[in-house]
């Protein structure tokens, strides 16, 4: 089957010589849930806007269901649900007017599900959007993105501004959507526990490129963090030279290094090559991996 979404060597900069995206290539396959991760400013929103045809890449291409979102915007938008990070909804209209408008735009709009989600999110259809809290307005935007039961859902920071209960409710709605066959999701997020809950694959952007692209479980089970006392390696380069090391950073008296492989094997390998005692290797949750791969030195 062809990918539902495909980025091919996408490049984009806002300032000459300072690329935000510097050759990004990855597909989203049918049925996949891909979590797009990266630090602030790593280009997640830029990439998502390119997929939606809102921003042209300066080189490379994007295909959605095989179409260019620039040449076939209607064909693409019919089948895609999208919520931006800073979605602006008309403040003077009511929630009911918003959903009526979307129902009119999308023949596949699911009114029963809309009612169910309004209840789940505890939203009053008669409320004016301008009077809602930031989180509630976000829930309306998300509802509008999913109620036509899109084949591909693209969400920029769906959890931003939502309290933990509202985030969980939104994940519940996404899982209902996934349980219908054929839906794929690309979402950016800083909430690693949300990514662990619904993500199938993780794409990590760094320095304008795809730094890691792997199934979430493989990331969790095939990578480990080694805590190496500085006494046994004078420089981070000594640790980073070890086979399988993705990155080492300084944390107080230790190097924290992310390695490919089983903790026991990595720890044997390091003990042999650095001849050090007291090296500890552990598998860690996604949040810790993110910090160890992209965090600063201390």
């Amino acid at each position, binding site marked *: 089957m062809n990918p539902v979404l495909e980025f091919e060597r996408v490049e984009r900069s806002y300032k000459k010589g300072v690329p935000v995206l510097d050759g990004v290539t990855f597909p989203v396959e049918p049925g996949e849930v891909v979590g797009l991760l990266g630090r602030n400013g790593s280009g997640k929103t830029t990439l998502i806007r390119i997929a939606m045809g809102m921003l042209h890449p300066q080189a490379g291409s994007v295909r959605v269901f095989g179409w260019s979102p620039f040449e076939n915007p209607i064909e693409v938008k019919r089948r895609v649900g999208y919520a931006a990070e800073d979605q602006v909804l008309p403040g003077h209209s009511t929630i009911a007017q918003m959903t009526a408008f979307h129902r009119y735009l999308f023949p596949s709009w699911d009114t029963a599900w809309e009612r169910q989600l309004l209840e789940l999110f505890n939203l009053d259809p008669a409320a004016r959007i301008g009077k809602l809290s930031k989180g509630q307005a976000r829930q309306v935007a998300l509802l509008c993105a999913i109620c036509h039961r899109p084949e591909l859902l693209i969400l920029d920071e769906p959890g931003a501004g939502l309290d933990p209960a509202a985030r969980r409710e939104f994940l519940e709605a996404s*899982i209902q959507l996934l349980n219908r066959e054929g839906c794929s999701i690309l979402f950016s997020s800083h*909430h690693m526990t949300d990514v662990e809950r619904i993500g199938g694959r993780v794409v990590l952007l760094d320095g304008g490129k795809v730094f890691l692209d792997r199934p979430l479980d493989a990331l969790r*089970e095939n990578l480990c963090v080694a805590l190496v006392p500085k006494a046994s390696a004078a420089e981070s380069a000594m640790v980073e030279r070890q086979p399988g090391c993705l990155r080492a950073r300084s944390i107080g008296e230790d190097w924290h290094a992310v390695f490919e492989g089983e903790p026991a094997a990595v720890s044997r390998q390091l003990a042999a090559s650095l001849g050090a005692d007291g090296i500890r290797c*552990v598998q860690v*949750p996604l949040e810790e991996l993110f910090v160890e791969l992209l965090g600063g030195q201390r």
Partner: protein
Amino acid sequence: MMQLIVHPADELPIYRQIMRQIVEAIAGGRLRQGDKLTSHRELAEQLVVAPLTVKKAYDELELLGYVETQRGRGTFVCSEPPKMKPAEQRERLRAAARKLLSEAYLGGLRFKDAAEILREADREISSGEPSPASGIWREKEES
């Protein structure tokens, strides 16, 4: 079926947490031969995790011989739990016991304390009490 709990920030990936709890339920007799598991889609909605994650847990359990999927009917606990050769099983259990005792002795516990921990674990497995989140990163709770 039974109450499962997942911790996204645990050291174990979610599909392994699901597998572990189902295996414990079978071992503790809370899930019996022929019992039907909640469908993977339904369990995904209950736990608020991706349907494919639950599917992966079920598939792995099937590979290991704990459950079997009957097309169109659902997933059931196998009538014959997977059997190892008795000698091989004793060997593996002895290795696990040595690991447990080493950890206990290094931590200053005595044999009696380790035996008490085993008894507690036995009670937990039979009653279905959820095991604590594992690992040294446990303090990282969900934000």
